[in-house]
């Protein structure tokens, strides 16, 4: 094997630490997701004051975005960076310290959110002392990534490294600016920005958190692990270049599509919508690159169980990046904004694109690191179909009920008066909200198959080496 020609060893223990941590927080986040989905149709499951929907929702989103998402990004990015730079991390001890601080920070974050300490900014809920912790973690990450890249033993940086570099830079800028606040106590602060301006800064951040946490690092994984697991080279390097630069350029202009028809000045809204439409191009650049890569040998989709995880993930990415721009159009926004439609959209991205890619990477990495094979391809296939059905059922249910909510709110009688009161509209949501919980349970069962498969793979490998 190629790696044995080099006289060094990769520090996989930190990588594994991040992966296991992210899986742990993922389980916590998914279970809370199930709970709050039940709260939507069974309000008795709210346990005031700590476990009401208003507090648990933040634990759900933060637990999954920062715990599962960022945890996986730290671990998998380190793995990719070491492989592509052909050297271990420059500061392995720093990475180990980062792992411990990461877990402490996520635990404290969850507790603080349950206690009601929140900045009330979506995806930037954590109060200022925790923000400082997040920034420290990110600096530690940046030092290791840049340090390792600067001392790399492979002159050319592969496309995944470009996406990683852009992620490190963009997240730092976004996170620091939007979290600027006036402290008013140890766990209380007020946004430095007020009113319309506060909204504009928050959604510039909010949408780009999607861009640089749920897109660019995941694309870095996709561009690395798709060729690795199929043995097929990326179809077009030129398309990678075009997709990369147009994506990192265009993303930052789009936040205002979250504020269509609000008092935000129209020109910012329109600019946001225009760039959101443009964003289809770079997104689909990667989608096409992914499809044509597998297109070099479609047999791989049949013979290699991992190929379909990556293919489905990039398919959801493709759907996501057409649906998103469609939603930004004023006429569509007027119907579906503020409804459950958007919840369906977000979950196609997170359960479809992000989670599928991350689990596929882990399926590849774990046997590689332990020098073994996956415990059961059959269970992996079961996992695949369960999460696919669960996610589709979730999203489609939410799209239907979202359109219903929007349409009923707009419905008028022949005399021009409103046809439905708000409570009548809420009452019509219950069957859909119940169906969403069922969808969530199906998805969770799929993820349990995955965890079992990984657990058994590691266990068998350890028994063999013992």
């Amino acid at each position, binding site marked *: 094997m190629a790696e044995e020609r080099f006289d060094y060893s990769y520090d996989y223990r930190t990588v594994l630490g991040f992966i296991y941590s992210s899986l742990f927080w993922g389980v916590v986040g998914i279970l809370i997701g199930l709970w709050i989905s039940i709260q939507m149709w069974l309000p008795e499951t709210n346990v005031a004051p700590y476990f009401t929907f208003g507090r648990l929702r933040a634990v759900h989103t933060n637990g999954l975005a920062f715990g599962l998402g960022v945890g996986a990004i730290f671990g998998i990015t380190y793995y990719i960076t070491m492989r592509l730079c052909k050297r271990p991390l420059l500061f392995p001890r720093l990475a180990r310290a980062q792992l411990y601080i990461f877990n402490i920070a996520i635990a404290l974050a969850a507790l603080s959110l349950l206690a009601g300490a929140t900045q009330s900014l979506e995806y930037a809920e954590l109060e200022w002392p925790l923000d400082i912790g997040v920034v420290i973690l990110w600096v530690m990450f940046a030092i290791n990534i840049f340090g390792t890249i600067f001392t790399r033993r492979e002159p050319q940086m592969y496309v995944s490294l470009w996406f990683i570099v852009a992620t490190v830079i963009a997240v730092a800028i976004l996170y620091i600016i939007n979290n600027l606040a006036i402290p008013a106590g140890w766990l209380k602060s007020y946004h430095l920005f007020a009113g319309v301006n506060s909204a*504009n800064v928050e959604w510039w951040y909010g949408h780009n958190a999607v861009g640089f946490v749920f897109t660019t690092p995941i694309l870095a994984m996709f561009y690395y692990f798709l060729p690795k697991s199929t043995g097929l080279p990326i179809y077009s390097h030129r398309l990678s270049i075009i997709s990369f630069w147009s994506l990192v350029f265009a993303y930052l202009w789009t936040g205002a599509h979250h504020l269509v028809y609000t008092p935000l000045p129209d020109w910012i809204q329109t600019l946001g919508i225009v760039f959101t439409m443009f964003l289809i191009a770079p997104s689909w650049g990667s989608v096409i690159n992914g499809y044509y890569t597998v297109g070099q040998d479609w047999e791989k989709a049949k013979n290699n169980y991992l190929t379909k995880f990556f293919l489905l993930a990039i398919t959801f990415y493709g759907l996501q990046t057409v649906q998103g721009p469609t939603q930004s159009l004023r006429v569509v926004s007027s119907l579906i904004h503020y409804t459950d439609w958007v919840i369906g959209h977000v979950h196609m991205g997170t359960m479809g694109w992000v989670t599928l890619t991350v689990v596929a990477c882990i399926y590849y990495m774990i046997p590689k690191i332990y020098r073994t094979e996956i415990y059961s391809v059959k269970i992996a296939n079961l996992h695949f179909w369960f999460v696919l059905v669960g996610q589709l059922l979730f999203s489609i249910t939410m799209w239907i009920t979202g359109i219903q909510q929007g349409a009923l709110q707009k419905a008028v009688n022949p005399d021009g008066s409103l046809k439905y009161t708000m409570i009548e509209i809420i009452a019509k949501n219950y069957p859909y909200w119940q169906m969403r919980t069922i969808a969530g349970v199906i998805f969770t069962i799929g993820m349990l198959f995955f965890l079992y498969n990984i657990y058994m793979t590691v266990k068998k490998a350890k028994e063999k080496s013992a």
Partner: protein
Amino acid sequence: MSLHHVIERNPVVLAVLATLAVLAGTIITMLYPMFRPEMHPKLEGLKPFTALQLAGRDVYQREGCFYCHTQTVRPLKTEVLRYGEYSKAGEFAYDRPFLWGSKRTGPDLARIGGKYPDEWHYKHFENPQAFFPQSNMPKYAFLKERKLDPQQIEAHMKALGFPYTKEEIEALKGKTEMDALVAYMQVLGTAVKK
């Protein structure tokens, strides 16, 4: 693609170019508007929150009310019909952060002030299902048991630079979080003429 050949071998060039790419949209859509007066309008009738109202707003934030209730009426016919006058930029000059929300599980609250008497809100927060059996809103009866901390609220008023009097802070003694939340509800949207 010889230019990119250079970029792919030079991480400093890559990092600088990526930073510039990220900053372009950031500067034009986020930073530049910040220095324009249209981003900082204030309606004539708009007043800073009183100590009690701010305490209520703190509770509103803490309980995550904005996850299910928006505070912005869009300029759409049925929306104005349902809630009242559409939201104006100048209504939010004292909102740090903005609480427009992103989801309407329940109704928008931008025009809730003065719509119902105080007593209605007290009873509704305590048990929403008593009014609407099919409501899925959690019960917030525990807010009645929680006394406000005048010192803490004074610190919050100071942090925001809102004007207040000693008497106003004194008057918070004995008041509950429920009192504060209701006061906050009743001021929402009152800067706009109905």
